[in-house]
């Protein structure tokens, strides 16, 4: 067993400059040729540990032993030299370059001083044949699908001679079918002698593919085990430290008046792709409408148009009986009674250098009691901030803490605290639980259900099909800018059914869909 060990990370500590302790004395042992799952909630420290292994971050303390020798991985360049490759959660690709250029970047074949581009295409062709992962080498990366991008990423690490491949939550953006393809490819790779570390927080995937697991929690390693010796329940206990009641109980929907009406919505992206092709649907009081779809099929545009961030090309939107103007104005939408939990909290949901309280009042600072005659009443603002911290269980010592000092889950709670206390009739929740720990996610899902019980409407866009099936009352599926399916009875379907529609394998007729 011991001589089979390819990697050992010993007593790793990582303290970030902002004081956040991501890794506390973590240990990890990986055997050659296995698929080793690194399991843990977001914020448990598994991504940081892998960043250290790949040389992106430097450990504060600790040592790494790779193939029997102690190594100092000071940069990704070093890691690649040792034969360590990593496929990141957010793809590390240059959109305006071609697939081939992305793959050969840093190891360009040369003819004289220039890049030998023909040689590059040949090389990419050879390699993708070798590993059975075909890619369109002359296309620009910005034009290819998510699954394809991931393939490019894997080839990128393989052509650099990676023997140990780290995959950081690779299935998060994939459809079930694409996930199956990926798993097959991974098994194929281990047969060729490659070792794989697989980061995830999805228990079913671990069961399906991994040989061994290491579970992490709050920056510490809880334990390592063979997958066949451990049940999902045990795993989840190790992950969370307590039993989690995964199912959310809820009453059947009592839908009332139409809150939001979308009519024949169209949008064309700057690259000329028509990403919304005449979408119509409505949201009623007291229901959660789920929107499913593979990323890039129009969900982002849909949400951004409804919330007034980008202008629509055609179509009409009514919020609470108010017609939305053509110009972009998120403020108008808010005034019309719309709340919005954005998909990327750091991009749009918070201001990182501002305090928690400042973030929570961003949509209501003009109103009493937060300001009067244009002068902000900071006492009221911070008082309210403290209230929200209590109500939404934000883990921090004060409302004066800057957002950047919080963990992802707590940041999302700040966003949610603002959006759920805005007293809006409609809430658009775009990937509301992405990348946060299970407890926080659970909390947010329950709040969404509570909104619905208060006779408000929620539009839930999520890539997490389990979440959709659990929380939504109705689900529509978007494929290439069109609604291809509508499920009125969510309880009767499962992930696989949804996946078929999401990939465009099946499509409902308008009669089947019924009244949207």
């Amino acid at each position, binding site marked *: 067993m011991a001589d089979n060990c390819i990697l050992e990370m010993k007593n790793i500590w990582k303290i970030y400059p902002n004081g956040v302790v991501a890794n506390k004395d973590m240990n990890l042992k990986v055997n050659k040729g296995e698929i080793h799952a690194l399991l843990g909630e977001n914020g448990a420290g598994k991504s940081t540990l892998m960043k250290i292994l790949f040389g992106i971050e430097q450990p504060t303390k600790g040592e790494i032993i790779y193939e029997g020798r102690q190594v100092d991985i000071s940069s990704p360049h070093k890691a690649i030299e040792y034969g360590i490759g990593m496929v990141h959660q957010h793809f590390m690709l240059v959109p305006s370059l071609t697939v081939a250029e992305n793959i050969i970047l840093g190891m360009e074949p040369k003819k004289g001083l220039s890049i030998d581009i023909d040689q590059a295409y040949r090389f990419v062709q050879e390699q993708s044949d070798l590993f059975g992962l075909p890619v369109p080498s002359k296309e620009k990366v910005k034009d290819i699908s998510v699954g394809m991008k991931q393939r490019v990423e894997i080839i990128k690490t393989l052509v650099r001679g990676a023997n140990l491949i780290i995959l950081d939550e690779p299935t998060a953006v994939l459809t079930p079918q694409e996930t199956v393809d990926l798993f097959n490819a991974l098994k194929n790779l281990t047969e060729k002698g490659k070792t794989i570390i697989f980061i995830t927080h999805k228990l079913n995937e671990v069961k399906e593919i991994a040989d061994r697991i290491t579970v992490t929690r709050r920056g510490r390693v809880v334990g390592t085990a063979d997958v066949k010796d451990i049940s999902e329940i045990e795993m989840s206990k190790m992950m969370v430290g307590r039993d989690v009641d995964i199912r959310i109980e809820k009453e059947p929907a009592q839908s009332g008046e139409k809150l939001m009406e979308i009519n024949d919505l169209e949008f064309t992206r700057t690259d000329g792709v028509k990403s919304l092709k005449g979408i119509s649907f409505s949201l009623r009081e007291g229901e959660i409408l789920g929107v499913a779809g593979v990323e890039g099929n129009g969900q982002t545009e849909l949400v951004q148009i409804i919330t007034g961030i980008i202008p629509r090309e055609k179509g009409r939107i009514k919020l609470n009986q108010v017609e939305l103007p053509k110009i972009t*104005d998120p403020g108008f939408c808010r005034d019309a009674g719309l709340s919005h939990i954005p998909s990327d909290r750091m991009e749009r949901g918070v201001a990182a250098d501002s305090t928690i309280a400042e973030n929570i009042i961003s*949509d209501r600072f003009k109103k009493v009691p937060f300001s009067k005659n244009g002068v902000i009443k900071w006492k009221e603002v911070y008082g309210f901030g403290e209230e929200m911290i209590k109500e939404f269980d934000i883990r921090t010592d004060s409302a004066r803490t800057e957002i950047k000092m919080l963990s992802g889950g707590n940041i999302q709670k700040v966003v949610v605290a603002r959006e759920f206390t805005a007293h809006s009739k409609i809430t658009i929740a775009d990937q509301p639980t992405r990348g946060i720990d299970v407890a926080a996610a659970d909390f947010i899902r329950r709040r969404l259900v509570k909104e619905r019980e208060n006779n408000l409407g929620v539009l839930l866009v999520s890539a997490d099909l389990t979440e959709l099936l659990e929380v939504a009352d109705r689900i529509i599926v978007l494929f290439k800018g069109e609604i291809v399916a509508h499920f009125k009875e969510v309880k009767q379907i499962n992930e696989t059914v949804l996946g078929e529609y999401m990939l465009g394998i099946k499509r409902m007729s308008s009669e089947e869909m019924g009244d949207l």
Partner: protein
Amino acid sequence: MKADKRFTLYRIGISVGIALLIGYIIVFIASVPSTDIAFMKKMKEAFDSANEAYKYFLTGALVRWRFTGAAFNQSGFIQWINEAVPIIITGLAVSMVFTAKQFNIGAEGQMFLGAAVATAVAIYFPGIPFISTLLVILTAMAVGAGFASIPGFMKAKLKASEMVTSLMLNYVAFFMGLFIIKTFLRDTEAGSLVSLEFQQQTMLPLLNERYRWHIGIFIALGMTVLVWFIMKKTTWGYKVKLIGDNIKFAEYSGINSSKMVFQVQVAAGAVAGSAGIIELLGYHGRFLWLYSPGYGWDGIIIATLARNNPLFVPLAALFLSYIRVGAKIMGRYTNIAPEIVAILQAVIILLVTAEAFLAKWKQRSINKEATQSETNDTPVQVGEVR
């Protein structure tokens, strides 16, 4: 985090120290005599004259060194305060746009053109004490605001880089200002291109007649409090901070970012517009700049040193003007050119803004704090780091 603020202070202190040390070394090298004498003697002489130069540099603004001994240097002190006035104002203006993360560096042009146009009012409007002074300053502010609206508009509506446009406009403002003075306001009796003299009653009251200590410093401090209030206590200031912190978030929260970008640039332009005319009203009594005096650029240094906090702006400006006055006094009494102060300024800016400078030291202390609290087993936030 406490460590954060503490290390910012350390960093500023150490940066200033390093800058002064580098300056000393340069002065020392410049002081080595070229005569053919023994090495040790040369070193001794250089050491003596470098010390002499630094004595003037560090204390000259406050102390007058005579053969008979030291005395308070009233003129140096007043020059120090007077010179801080325009750069406090431009520092405030720059800190406003920087808070909104707008790289508008047009304060120089706004200040110059504002002063040139307001000169007309100062010459021709009947000299009513206080009222006409106020009117002159308001005119300069209006001109500064108007001129700032060009890059503001281009950024807000056309998304043209405000840095390039505001820079180009500095040149335009300079030439327009000179043109206005030359064509309409020129004193034809004068042997140089200067405006007619201002109305006597329009001039700022003096605290000290002899050395022309004018009340500009109080105007500047008043503006500091005003800008501080606006930026920290009003909804408008909150909006400015928000668009600076994360403009997409501000838009998402319902703030009209284009409007705010435009407004903050115009508001800062108004502040900057008054910087030049206040000095003219207090000190010179007419428009006499043939070269742009560079106060807008100084504003950038000061806003940086003050970390865009209006309350720190006067401190930074007083610091800058202190070392400048010191350097000039040094230049008068020794052979060291006062331009050495530019080298010090550059070193200070580079080090003060270097986030990673002393970071290892800081990290060590943070690590210590963090591991300590870990071993004490108090709960510590576990963070996802972006």
